[in-house]
């Protein structure tokens, strides 16, 4: 055993705590499961006619819109995780952990395990609801697993951003205040229409440079296209890229926050 103790034990214990406290606050968990589904129902009800547009990639708006629920769910999970970490800073719990031989990596990975667990359950629920409502992913059974996997990967990447912001600001309120900003990012994407059908130039430009579009399109391609290599590479590549950058930044912020010698 190193002087820090085994990393696996530290990560698993911190992950357990993260999951426990996530699910012991139903008031926080409920919206992340059901708000995305409610928005999906509203969008499908109001925008079904969009699927009649020439060039629309599917004749079911539900198939098209389902991918967005994964992103919205990931955002909820991220905000919860960021707020939890910020609360640990505010209450001094982080100092308590800092006085143990805990490794910095264990704290981040353990914290993100809660996000992953929540995202896994959310993705399973969204997909199940979608399938019950008639969605038949073109990519088949393997594609279903990949949809869930990409959904979790996106949540992990967003979670790392939440951890970075929590460690930089040390304020739960600041994280909550950033939630609407994140939401704007989601709406300025190809969530409601394919990019090639957006006629307003500035909006099409924004959706084209917004990475969220490619994360949605990665998941969407598995549902409505099948195996679109380009969409998958962009989706997975961006999720891994954003996650890597955010994790590195969070690690740096944690070192600054835990200025222990």
């Amino acid at each position: 055993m190193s002087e820090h103790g085994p990393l696996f034990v530290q990560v698993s214990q911190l992950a357990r705590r993260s999951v426990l406290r996530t699910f012991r606050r139903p008031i926080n968990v409920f919206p992340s499961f059901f708000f995305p589904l409610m928005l999906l129902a509203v969008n499908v009800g109001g925008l079904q006619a969009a699927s009649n547009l020439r060039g629309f990639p599917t004749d079911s708006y539900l198939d098209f819109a389902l991918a967005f629920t994964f992103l919205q769910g990931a955002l909820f999970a991220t905000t919860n995780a960021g707020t939890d970490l910020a609360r640990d800073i505010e209450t001094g719990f982080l100092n308590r952990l800092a006085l143990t031989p805990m490794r910095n990596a264990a704290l981040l990975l353990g914290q993100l395990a809660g996000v992953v667990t929540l995202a896994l359950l959310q993705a399973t629920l969204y997909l199940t609801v979608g399938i019950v409502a008639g969605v038949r992913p073109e990519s088949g059974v393997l594609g279903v697993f990949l949809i869930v996997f990409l959904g979790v990967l996106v949540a992990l990447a967003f979670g790392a951003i939440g951890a970075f912001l929590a460690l930089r600001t040390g304020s739960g309120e600041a994280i909550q205040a950033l939630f609407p900003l994140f939401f704007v990012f989601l709406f300025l994407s190809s969530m409601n229409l394919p990019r090639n059908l957006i006629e307003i130039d500035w909006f099409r430009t924004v959706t084209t440079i917004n990475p969220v579009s490619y994360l949605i399109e990665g998941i969407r391609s598995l549902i409505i296209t099948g195996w679109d290599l380009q969409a998958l590479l962009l989706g997975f590549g961006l999720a891994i890229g954003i996650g890597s950058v955010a994790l590195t930044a969070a690690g740096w912020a944690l070192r600054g926050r835990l200025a222990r010698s």
Partner: protein
Amino acid sequence: MRDEHGIRAEALAREFKGGIRAVCGIDLEVAPGEIYGFLGPNGAGKSTTVHMLTTLLPPSSGTARVAGFDVTTEGQQVRAAIGAALQEAALDPLLTGREHLRLQTALHGMPRAERKRRSQALLERVGLTEAADRKVQTYSGGMKRRLDLALALAHEPSILFLDEPTTGLDPQSRNALWAEVARLARDEGVTVFLTTQYLEEADVLADRVGIIDHGTIVAEGTPAALKAEIGRPSVEAIPVEPSDLVALARVLERFGVPVPGSPKGVTVRLDGGEDALADVVRALDAEGLHVSHLQLHAPTLDDVFLAKTGRSLEGAGDELEETEPEPVPA
């Protein structure tokens, strides 16, 4: 868990952004097995000192060794040797007491069976067995503090830092915590560094006391020695007729220097010690002054603080409240 090195700090200082000097180059030495009371008002530099000694905050200058290890270069070894219950019990309201202990012991690298055994033993020691599986959000302030202490003891540290451990506790919880801290030092040889703003706490618990004000240690010694240094008792008198207050003050000031006391009366430190009390009574009688209250006060640590700083410790924190920034690294 007996400590052989204690704590030693030399010229330890911490400056925050904006040039605020929270701790101004203090020297202190705590012997192994000793309970050292670090007494001072809010904002005096107590918590900043504890954060430096526990490796949570790097000193701006100076050195400190805890359990024989340098806090700047051997942080890992320092943390392995110490336990700390910092200001405000830092607990997760959604976890149970037992879950807290399991997490703490796991992070300290204990094997699974040892974690279980140690957690149970600590829960029993701090009297939380029945509440062990309840969420901490249902605990009282005293229960939280006891759990905090148990967590600090999880890995059997040789040095224990307690930052204002009884603030906000009811007398019963406070006395129970005092008894446990005293037992740890007496029976297990644990060195205890205790910060407090309560005179009684320092007086009852500490083998030696350091008094800090504006980031500087202004007095240090055993409570008895510090009080003996001040030496003289004070006498407080309250006249029957409030209009006699000026005359009463004139008489009492013949016997010593006025010190803060009841606003309804006059208090002076007796130059002649307690032997002067009889002369005070005779002088009041000779002047025809009748008093409703006459009391001799033995010197207290507050008198020591007053003598060293010119202010009473009670309420001194109010004016300093904003001067000690939260010791969170940038």
